[in-house]
C-alpha cells in the first residue's frame, strides 16, 4: 500500500515546474496573446513531455498516466495552453487503438515534437453531453468523410492533426484522425471566456478522416477528464497561492487583511477543498494506468471534485483581491477563466455526479 509518487515522477514534476517558472509566466502568456508559442512547445519537447505516453518501440518513453499526471498539474498551475495536453493524451490512444501504419506514421513524429494534435470534441448547443451528435461520419466504402461543427478546440490552428469525435452511421460515436491542412476543414477562433487556451471553431465539410474507433474515443474522453482534473488542481493551487500572498501583503484598518478571520477562514476552506480533491486526480490517473475496474467511477469522482474545488478557489481568490481582482491587469482572471473552460470540458461536475449515481445506486428493479 503506497499512495505516493516515486522519485522519478517527482523529478519530472520538478523539471517541468522549473522550466515553466523560467519560460512561461503570466507575462509571457499575456505577450503571446493567444498565439501559438513555438518557444514553449520546443521547450516542452526538450523536456521529453511528448514522449511520455509513446511506446518505446516508437521512440517514446513508454510511461503511463500516473507518470504524467503531475506534469498536467503543472500545465494547469502555469496556464500552459494547448495543444500539449491533447498531443500527449492522443499519442496514448493511437498506440492502443491505431493500426501499425497509423502508429508508425504518427507516434515517432509526436515523440519528436514535430506532430501536434488537437482534440475536437465540444459542439454548439450540445450541453454537457459527452457523446457527439452534431458531427457525423459517412463512408463511401473506401474513405471516411466528416460533416458538422466543433467548437472550443484548443489550438486547432496550431495543430498538424485533428482528433475528432463523430457519429458513425450505426449511431455509435468514434474517434477519427484528420491531417491538417485538409480540404473541407475551416478553422476560426472562437470568441470565448479563455482566449489564452486558443479556442477554435472547426467546420467540417466532407473533411477526409481515418477512423481510430469507438473504444479510442471512450478512452480519450476518460483520460482527457483526468488531465483536466489535474490541470484544475494546478490552477486552484496557483490561485490559492495568489490569494494567500495578497492577504499577507494587503493592509486595511492598519492590519494585513489575512489577519482577519473572515479572510483566514476563507483561505483555510480553499485549502481544504483543494487538498480534498487532489488525491482523486492522482487516483484516477492510477486507475486509468492500471485499467482498474473502478476506473469510470474514479474518473467521475476526480472530475467532479476538481471542478467544484477549482471553481470555489478561483471565485474566492477574486473576492479576496477585492476590486483589483476584477481588473484585467491582475492575474486572478487568467486562472479563473482557464478553470472555467476546463470545468465545462469533458462533462462538468453535475454530469459526472449523475454518472457516479448511475454507477453506485442499486439498479432499478426489473
Amino acid at each position, binding site marked *: *500500500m*503506497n*499512495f*505516493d*509518487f*516515486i522519485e522519478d515522477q517527482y523529478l519530472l514534476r520538478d523539471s517541468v515546474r522549473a522550466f515553466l517558472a523560467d519560460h512561461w509566466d503570466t507575462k509571457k502568456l499575456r505577450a503571446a496573446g493567444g498565439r501559438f508559442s513555438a518557444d514553449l512547445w520546443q521547450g516542452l519537447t526538450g523536456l521529453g513531455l511528448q514522449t511520455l505516453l509513446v511506446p518505446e518501440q516508437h521512440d517514446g518513453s513508454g510511461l503511463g498516466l*500516473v507518470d504524467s499526471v503531475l506534469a498536467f498539474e503543472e500545465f494547469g498551475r502555469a496556464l500552459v495552453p494547448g495543444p500539449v495536453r491533447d498531443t500527449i493524451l492522443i499519442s496514448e490512444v493511437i498506440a492502443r487503438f491505431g493500426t501499425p501504419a497509423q502508429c508508425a506514421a504518427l507516434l515517432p513524429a509526436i515523440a519528436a515534437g514535430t506532430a501536434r494534435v488537437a482534440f475536437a470534441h465540444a459542439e454548439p448547443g450540445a450541453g454537457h453531453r459527452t457523446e457527439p451528435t452534431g458531427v457525423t461520419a459517412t463512408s463511401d466504402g473506401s474513405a471516411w468523410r466528416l460533416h458538422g461543427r466543433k467548437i472550443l478546440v484548443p489550438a486547432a490552428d496550431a495543430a498538424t492533426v485533428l482528433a475528432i469525435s463523430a457519429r458513425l452511421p450505426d449511431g455509435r460515436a468514434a474517434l477519427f484522425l484528420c491531417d491538417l491542412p485538409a480540404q473541407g476543414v475551416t478553422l476560426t477562433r472562437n470568441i470565448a471566456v479563455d482566449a489564452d487556451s486558443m479556442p477554435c471553431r472547426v467546420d467540417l465539410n466532407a473533411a477526409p478522416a481515418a477512423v481510430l474507433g469507438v473504444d479510442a474515443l471512450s478512452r480519450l474522453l476518460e483520460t482527457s477528464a483526468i488531465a483536466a482534473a489535474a490541470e484544475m488542481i494546478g490552477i486552484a493551487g496557483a490561485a490559492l497561492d495568489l490569494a*494567500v500572498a495578497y*492577504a*499577507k501583503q494587503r493592509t486595511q484598518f492598519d*492590519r*494585513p487583511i*489575512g*489577519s482577519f*478571520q473572515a*479572510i*483566514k*477562514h476563507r*483561505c*483555510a*476552506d480553499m*485549502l*481544504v477543498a483543494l*487538498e*480534498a*480533491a487532489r*488525491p*482523486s486526480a*492522482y*487516483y484516477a490517473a*492510477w486507475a486509468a494506468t492500471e485499467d482498474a475496474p473502478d476506473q469510470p467511477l474514479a474518473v467521475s*469522482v476526480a472530475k*467532479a*471534485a476538481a471542478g467544484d474545488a477549482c471553481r470555489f478557489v478561483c471565485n474566492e481568490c477574486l473576492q479576496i483581491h477585492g476590486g483589483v481582482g476584477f481588473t484585467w491587469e491582475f492575474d486572478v482572471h487568467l486562472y479563473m477563466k482557464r478553470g472555467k473552460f476546463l470545468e465545462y470540458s469533458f462533462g462538468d461536475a*453535475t454530469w459526472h*455526479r*449523475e454518472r*457516479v*449515481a448511475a454507477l*453506485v*445506486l*442499486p439498479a*432499478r428493479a426489473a
Partner: protein
Amino acid sequence: MDFRYSPEEEGFRSAIRDWLHANLPPGWGTTFREPEDEAARFAFRLDWEHKLHAAGWSGVAWPREHGGRGATLVEQAILQEELARANAPESVNIIGRNLTAPTLMEHGTAAQKQRFLPKILSSEEIWCQGFSEPNSGSDLASARCRATIDGDHFLINGQKIWTSFAQYAHWCFVLARTNPTAPKHHGLSFILVDMRSPGITIRPLVQITGDTEFSEVFFDDVRVPRENLVGGLDRGWRIAMTTLTYERGPEEALPRQVRFRRDLDAILERAAATRSDGSRVADDAAIRQKLAASYIDLELMRLGGLRSFSRVIKGETIGPEASLNKLYWSHMYQRMTEVAMEVEGSSGALLPGDADAPLDGALPYKFLQSRAMTIYSGSSEIQRNIIAERVLGLPR
C-alpha cells in the same frame, strides 16, 4: 503508487476477519442488539475490549517493550478497518489507548509507563480527558482549574466539562493551572488523576440524542501525588498539544471512513427502496446529485486518508495538516446524514425505538450525533485558524 497489500498483510487481514467472525455475538449486525441501558451497554463494550486484549488485538502496533506486538502501521490500519467493517462494538478504551498511551510513551517517566500502560492495554483501567472547562472551550489555554502544591501532593480545585466516559473512568488526565501569574500557555500542567479520589463529583450531562455519554466533573481539594505530573511543572500545554495531534491523526481517518461507508451504503439502499409520489427516491434527479455528492465526499476522505497514511508509513509527521482531515470529515458526514433524512422524507424524523422508524431510526440518530463533530476535538473555527496560521502562514 500501488494500492495492493502484501501477502503478509492480507494474511493479517484474514486472521482478524476470522477471529471477528468467530467471536462477535451470534446474529451480530442482523438480529443481535446491544443493551439499551447505557450502563449495561458500557459493560457489554468493556467485555468486548477484554476479549480483544485476550486475543492479542489490543494495541497491536505498540512497541513490544510496552506489551504490544510491534505490528506495522499498515497492520494496525487493517485491524481498525476490519473492526469498522464488521461494525464491531465501539471502543470504550479509546481515550486511554489512543491518547493517554502515546502521550505517556512520548513524555511519561519510566515509572509512569510501567504503572499505566499495561492496564490501558488490557482495558483494566478506563480513561477520560480533562481538558475543556465551562469557560475554556476553544480558548483551552485559559483553563482555570487549579493545582496547588501541598508537600508531595497537588491539591486540585475546579471544574471540567464534556468529559466522555467520566462516570466509568478510573483515571483522567487533567490540564490544570499550576502557575496563575505566568502567561496562560506557560502556567499549565498535565496531571494524571485517580477518578476514585475523594473530592471528585461527576454530574452526567444529557446530550441532544438523550444519551449521557459525557459529564461535568468537579474537583474539590482532590489530592494527587506529585509523581503523577507528566512532562514537568508548567509544561502541560506542550503535552496537551501532543495529545491533540493523536486525536486528529490519519490512523484514525481510515477506519472512520469505513464506518461512514456503512452508513452511505444504507442510505443508497434506502433511496432505492423508498418510493415518493409513485417513483423511487433513487430516480429523483436532485436526490441523485446529493447522493453522488456524498459518495464523492466519502471517496475523497478515503483517498486523503490513504495519502496521509502513506506519508506516516514513510516516517513523515503530519502536524497541523491533520486539521484539514478533521475539518473535512466532520462537515462531510453532517451533510451525509442530512441527505439520509431527506431520502426518508417524513419518516426521517422517527428515532430509534419507534415502530415505524426505517432502520430503527439509526440515521436520524446519527444526524443528531454528528452535530457534535464540528465542535469536539477543536471546533471548525479553531481548525480553520490552525490551518490559516500554521499551514498557510497567515498573520495572527
